[in-house]
């Protein structure tokens, strides 16, 4: 694993001695790793290897049972649930495997919801700018269900970036796509993460995009 810490000597994410056990299952031991700002990373592994678990642990949506995760220098295992929610809203954006939205809200409102629920200032101008950069501005008043699959994928990226997170987590964003679209989505994530100053941590078993990453954690 290559490290280049010129941008910020402190790692963005620092995982030490982490393990997790679900009820009635054998524990998953995660390798130690660090991820630095601007250094996009892929967490790869077969299904069932605990990739998603690791992502949800980093996002603070699963309680750390043993070991240590430092995000932006903070030991998140010590956070209360409330502090964790706040911290996640503040610093983390997530692109989920399936692009799903709040169905009662329009495209633009879903992006603004990304700001609102993260506890950030609601700003429809920046939300529109985000939609524009993703080619969705003309769709802003539509309902998410009226968008095509590709548009929905882009909207979920817009929503994740709406709160201006430092970390962009993506959970298997390409697995269900054909080669061409997988490549497109990968490029989109990297481009948008760069444009918004976010570091991408992508969880996937998709071998097709593996070659794009220098920074890979294998489970």
């Amino acid at each position, binding site marked *: 694993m290559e490290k280049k810490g010129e941008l910020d000597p402190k790692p963005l994410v620092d995982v030490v001695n982490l393990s997790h056990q679900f009820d009635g299952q054998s524990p998953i031991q995660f390798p130690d790793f660090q991820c630095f700002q601007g250094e996009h990373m892929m967490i790869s592994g077969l299904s069932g290897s605990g990739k*998603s678990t690791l992502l*949800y642990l980093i*996002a603070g*949506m*699963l309680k750390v049972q043993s070991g240590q995760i430092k995000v932006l220098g903070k030991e998140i295992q010590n956070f209360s*649930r*409330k502090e964790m*929610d*706040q911290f*996640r*809203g*503040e610093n*983390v954006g*997530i692109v*989920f*495997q*399936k692009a*799903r*939205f*709040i*169905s*009662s*809200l329009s495209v633009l*409102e879903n992006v*603004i*919801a*990304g700001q*609102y*629920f*993260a*506890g950030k200032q*609601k700003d429809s101008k920046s939300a529109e700018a985000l939609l524009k950069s993703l080619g969705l501005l003309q769709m802003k008043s539509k309902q998410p269900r009226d968008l095509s699959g590709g548009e929905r994928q882009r909207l979920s990226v817009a*929503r994740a970036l709406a*709160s201006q997170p430092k970390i962009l987590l993506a*959970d298997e964003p390409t697995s269900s796509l054909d080669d061409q679209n997988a490549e497109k989505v990968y490029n989109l994530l990297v481009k948008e993460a760069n444009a918004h100053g976010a570091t991408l941590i992508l969880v996937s078993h998709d071998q097709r995009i593996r070659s794009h990453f220098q920074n890979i954690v294998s489970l």
Partner: protein
Amino acid sequence: MNVISIGYKNLKASGLRSVLTLIMLAAGVSLAVLLSALNESVDQGFKKNIKGTDMVVGAKGSPLQLILSAIYQIDNPTGNISKAEAENLAKNRLVDRTVQLSFGDSYKGRKIIGTSPEYMDWYDVGLESGRVWSEPFEAVVGAQVAAETGLSIGSTFHSAHGSDMDAEVHDDVDFKVVGIMEHSSTILDRVILVSDQSIRDLHHSEPGSEEEITAMLVRFKNKMGMLSLPRIVNEQTSMQAALPAIEVNRLMGLFSVGRQVFEIVTILLLALGGISVLVSMINAMSDRAYELALIRAMGAGRSKLLVMILTEAALLGLFGAVFGIIFGHVAQALLKKQMMMKYGFELNPLDFTAFETALILGTVLICVLAALFPALSASRRDVFKTLKEYED
């Protein structure tokens, strides 16, 4: 964007389910509104017409019947009493004022009352036009009678014996309208007043026979009258004394079973509304489990989720209550005319009461309480599990 606008959009998006719950809530609330307005109207109607009448004397019989016939003109009289005996009572030092009433005839279902112009003073009712009666067979008609029968100054009509629409008509004599009373929302709106001489002439009382009247309204000088006069009348005369305040309370007591049934139905409807909110919210929470987990993932805490869901329920309650109040008032507007015509009770569909404000708050509270359990369980649901469940 805030919890209120999101709650509203969620309600809108849930379509039929919200509509059904709204209908339940609105039905309960509108029934409560209508019930309270009818109660108020009946109470007011009875109280307004008691005004200044401390005691009614008439022939022996049911005291309630005497009150209903002499004050409200909604029952048949108990019989006749001697005019001399009544006048003797009127001289008692505890009596302030009296007014004599002779009735038993009608025109198109409207009671004709033989009395003196003091009867109009009794209720502080003046004339809209014309003058009071002075000669036999001159009549002054109530505002509502004039409006409904088309009688106007100068019109003539025949009276009929009894109060039925198809009663025997005295077609040998014509009454002539000389005045029309102003609208007062009292019993005077619905009656025709003539001199008591006219009534006697109508029934061809033999000259020299004892003069009779039907009833006499009595106003006491002070509370002492209330204590002693009714007993004196009942024990020492052939007449009966009835106290309207007591009889009306007794009548209200008879109604109270019916009122209670309505009250129970109203409470049941509101409770059903609450249950409907509960069911609707449980369904909504399970339908939107993924969305709610998504919102948590975006950084919203449990408490924000809780507030959001409860706000949605509160909005449902608010809309239900507001629609209910609107329907309740529309129903009042529809019933207004009939209530007035049949019973002389007034409904004011444009009056909004403090009870209705309480009803809105109560409905909102019921909805919030009903949504509390689904909201708590939804806000505590495991985010990771929910998201994974829907992705696999």
